[in-house]
Structure formats: C-alpha cells, structure tokens
C-alpha cells in the first residue's frame, strides 16, 4: 500500500510538471534576441552618425526602431510557427503577449506624450526629458515587460529583465552625465537594446544549439 501511495505521489508530481511545461513558451528566442540586438546596435550608430539630435527627432526615431523590431520579431515567430507546424497564436504566445503589454503600453504612451510635449518645451527641459530621462525609463519599462513575460518562459529571461530594470534605475541614479545629450542617449540605447540583446542572443544561440544536439 505504501508503494501505491509513493507511486500516486510521484504521478501527481509528474502531472504537475507536465502541466507547467505545457503552459511554457517554447519558441527559439536566440534569433529574436539577435535580430533585436542587431537592429538596436545599428540604430544607435545610425542615430549618432545621422545626427539625430533634437529630442523630438530622437523620441520619434527610437519609437520607429521599436516598431520595426517588433515587426521583425513577429515575422521570425511566424516563420518558426510555420516551420514547426504550430499555431502562431498559441496559448503560451497569448500569455507572453499579455504579460509584455502593460509595461510596453506605458512606455509607448509616455513616449507619445513626450513626443507631443517636447516641441512646446524650452530647449533645456526638452533635452532633459527626451535625451536623459526617457532612455532609462524605456529601459526599465522594457525590463519590467520582459520580467513579466518570463513567468511563462524559461527562467533566464527574468534575469535578463532584471538587467534592464537595474540598468534603467542605475542610469536614473547616476543622473545627467557630462557627455553631450545625443551621444549619451544613443549610446545608452545602443548598449542596452543593442549590446545586451546581442550578448543574450549569442548565449541562447549556443545553449539552444546544445539542447538540440543532446
């Protein structure tokens, strides 16, 4: 009878594990991270060399980069779903999207308001809001979005989210640097949205490849 009980408890544990695994998002993230990182890095370089220096242009430019990156990631996901003969809009995908949305919408609305308001503000205030405060806010909000989605994804994603949250908060804490506004702003965006994504994408690329080979 004791054996029956052990077996029942073990079965319940296996069932719980499988139910949890069923709800987890399993698409390959490495290509998405590498795409986001590449776009982020190039966008920062282009933003700097093209001298996108006014706060309004900076906010509009990075919003466009964000939309472009999301569109690219969507196409990659669609391709993965077609290749694997899986539904694109699967329950885990829906959960991840729902988790991402609140923080991303907050960032989008904040940016849209900033875009409208910085034109009317004096130059110094516009620079501080657009080039100094918005980038860390975007970074921290993006980290919150990633962290929330991480509850339905592999565990490492939440740590990745924390890197953005702490990075964004750290930038707020450090305050306004001596660097010229555009260099600082594009540099920060390039480091976080470019460099961090590329680094994590490279890590995932190696680990996902190893898992496939195992």
């Amino acid at each position, binding site marked *: 009878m004791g054996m*029956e009980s052990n077996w029942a408890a073990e079965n*319940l544990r*296996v069932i719980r594990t*499988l139910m949890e695994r*069923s709800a987890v998002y399993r698409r390959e993230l490495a290509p998405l991270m590498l795409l986001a990182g590449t776009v982020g890095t190039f966008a920062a370089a282009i933003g700097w060399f093209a001298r996108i220096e006014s706060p309004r242009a900076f906010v509009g430019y990075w919003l466009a980069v964000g939309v472009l990156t999301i569109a690219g990631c969507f196409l990659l996901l669609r391709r993965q779903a077609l290749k694997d*003969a899986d539904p694109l809009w*699967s329950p885990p995908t829906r959960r991840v999207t729902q988790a991402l949305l609140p923080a991303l919408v907050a960032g989008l609305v904040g940016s849209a308001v900033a875009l409208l308001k910085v034109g009317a503000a004096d130059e110094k205030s516009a620079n501080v809001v657009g080039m100094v405060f918005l980038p860390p806010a975007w970074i921290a909000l993006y980290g919150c979005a990633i962290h929330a989605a991480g509850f339905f994804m592999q565990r490492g994603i939440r740590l990745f989210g924390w890197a953005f949250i702490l990075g964004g908060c750290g930038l707020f804490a450090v305050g306004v640097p001596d660097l010229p506004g555009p260099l600082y702003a594009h540099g920060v965006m390039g480091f976080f949205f470019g460099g961090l994504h590329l680094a994590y994408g490279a890590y995932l690329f190696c680990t996902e490849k190893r898992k496939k080979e195992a």
Partner: protein
Amino acid sequence: MNPEPFLRLDRVIHEKGRLAIMSLLAASPQLSFTEMRDTLNMTDGNLTAHMRTLQETGYVSVTKAFQGGRPLTTYSLTVQGRKAFTIYINLLEQIVQQTKSGK
C-alpha cells in the same frame, strides 16, 4: 488502506503516455501535434496511437486546419475528458491522503 480508489482509476488515462498527454492538454486550451511530440519526446507513431485511443474514448477532440498552406492538427480536451482527468487526479490524491492518515 482502502484499495477502492486504486481500482477506480481510469485505465485509459492510467497508461503513462496517455497520462502525459492528458496532463499537457489539461493545462492548455489546445496543443498542436508537434508541440506535444516535442514536449513528450514521443515518436509520431506512438503519439498517433495514443491520440487515437483518447479520441475513441471521447476524451480528446481534434481540429484540422491549414496555416500558411501547411496542415495544422491541434488537439484539446473534451468536457468528458476534463471530467475524467479531474476524477483521476482526485483518486490519486485520495490514495496519498489515505497513506498519510494511516487508513
């Protein structure tokens, strides 16, 4: 210990592979064939055989559609299947509880 709960366990669900399939489907409104095959590391033939048994019992329903010109087969638990799975889990918990309480 009362052996009755053990004897009442649904034999269709009780099989290891089918129990795993039912567990996955219980946590998700629908899953594709490939998602289940990859998660459970089953062969196509093995998974097909189990799915057929579960369909014949009325525990699982199948939907066939096309996505991007390719066939897409998805499965979900029927009301009957969800009820049978809940009963199965309750019986397992009863077995564990009986041992804990020393009956």
